[in-house]
């Protein structure tokens, strides 16, 4: 399938507008083209947030189903990718909250280890510790950290997707990183030396 051009190129915008117009007209090939152009990034972010293939698939599918339903409302005030990620992040975060609620109802909450109180008893691998630390971040820090530092979104894109100013995204990233550094403080000596 043909991929879309970079959105900031004039030609890219034109082709994106044409593609959207075809999708609005109900052209199945255009739907597939739009899907192929964006599905990788939507799925990757959904997977990073969910950590499970099944959930990531559900979120991705719902994102595109809802996007196709509402594509007629797209006003070109942002790029199509930003609009899609706004839908995708909203679906993923809402879905994760519901899943979390359901799971905590099913099983009693275990004593959760909070950031800053993790002791380095068993000398776990950095990746294990980092995973615990990221999982322990609150949703607002975790989402911004994963979108920016892991998936490479800009603060403007994050702000648009989360409905917050870019400056707030920067602040959350700064605070999220600080919490991670704090959680992994006992590695600090090795890293600096």
């Amino acid at each position, binding site marked *: 399938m043909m991929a879309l051009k970079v959105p900031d190129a004039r030609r890219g915008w034109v082709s994106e507008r044409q593609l959207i117009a075809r999708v609005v007209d109900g052209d199945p090939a255009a739907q597939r083209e739009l899907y192929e152009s964006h599905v990788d990034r939507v799925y990757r972010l959904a997977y990073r947030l969910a950590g499970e293939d099944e959930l990531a698939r559900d979120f991705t599918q719902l994102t595109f189903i809802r996007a196709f339903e509402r594509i007629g409302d797209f006003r070109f005030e942002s790029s199509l990718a930003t609009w899609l990620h706004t839908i995708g992040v909203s679906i993923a975060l809402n879905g994760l909250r*519901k899943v979390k609620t359901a799971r905590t109802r099913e099983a009693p*909450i275990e004593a959760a280890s909070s950031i800053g109180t993790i002791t380095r008893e068993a000398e776990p691998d950095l990746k294990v510790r*980092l995973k615990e630390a990221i999982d322990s971040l609150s949703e607002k820090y975790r989402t911004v950290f994963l979108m920016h530092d892991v998936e490479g979104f800009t603060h403007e894109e994050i702000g648009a997707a989360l409905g917050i100013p870019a400056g707030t995204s920067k602040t959350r990233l700064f605070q999220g990183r600080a919490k991670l550094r704090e959680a992994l403080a006992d590695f600090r000596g090795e890293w600096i030396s």
Partner: protein
Amino acid sequence: MTDEERIDEIIRNAASDYNRPPATPKDEMWTAIQSAQKSAGPRLHITAGGASRSASEAHGTAARFSQKFMWIGMAAAAAFLLATGVGIGRWTNTSGPETAQQDTVRHIVEAPANTPVAPPNEVGPSSAPEVEPSSSEKAPPRDVQPASRTRSREDIRRNPEIVRKGGTLPRYVGIPQTTNNGFATAPVNTTYQVATQRHLADAEALLTSFSLGTRDERMDAQFAVWAKGLLSNTRLLLDSPAGDDPRRAKLLQDLELVLAQIVQLSPNAAAQDRELIQGSIQSENVMTRLRTAIPAGQPREITER
């Protein structure tokens, strides 16, 4: 490079393995999307309180639900819209015989959408002469205060010059504009606008009561009944033009989650369950966002007249 920057880089590199996604299952997901699109009924939601399901399964459930409860939903929506319409009708017909007031309304409609609203202490008749056009025009948008409906109408009736000079513009007029709570109102029908704000006010009342109420089975049952009605309206609004604004839609979606949790709260629910709901309310700042979204005193005054 400082130590912190170096550590951040190490963390960033290590984090690339966090929830590393596999190859995108494009074809399988596309098949599921197509089958969901072919099924009847466009409504798609991950069910509240339940584990996630495939899109087609969720779609099937939604379709069954809408068939089963379609008539209830339609009746509720009709009653809701009728009540809102009556409220708007009564409100718009309240302009008295005084020509000054009619003149005022005309000027309100003609006033520019971004006209700042004077702070409450500047709107009163005694202070009206102090409102100068230049000072009003210079006031930055962040200083705009929500105008009380009763105060503004009364004051405008007494002193139409306030409006002529650009001193105040009550938002309840319903003309297209952008509210200072950040929600775009221009493309939304006035009826949906009023209905949404009234709904949010009711939701705020419920959540406040839920946070402050005593804990017993009878209260929980009452909260569940109350939340059930609000949940239905929330979902109707989400699928209406009122849900087109991303910020409002996000608020409604978060509200939907909280209401669904309250509806599902069993009479013998543990304190832990209530704490979870409180956690949902607090983590998303639902109360703050609700209060921000509700202009001062607007919805109730409109509908209760």
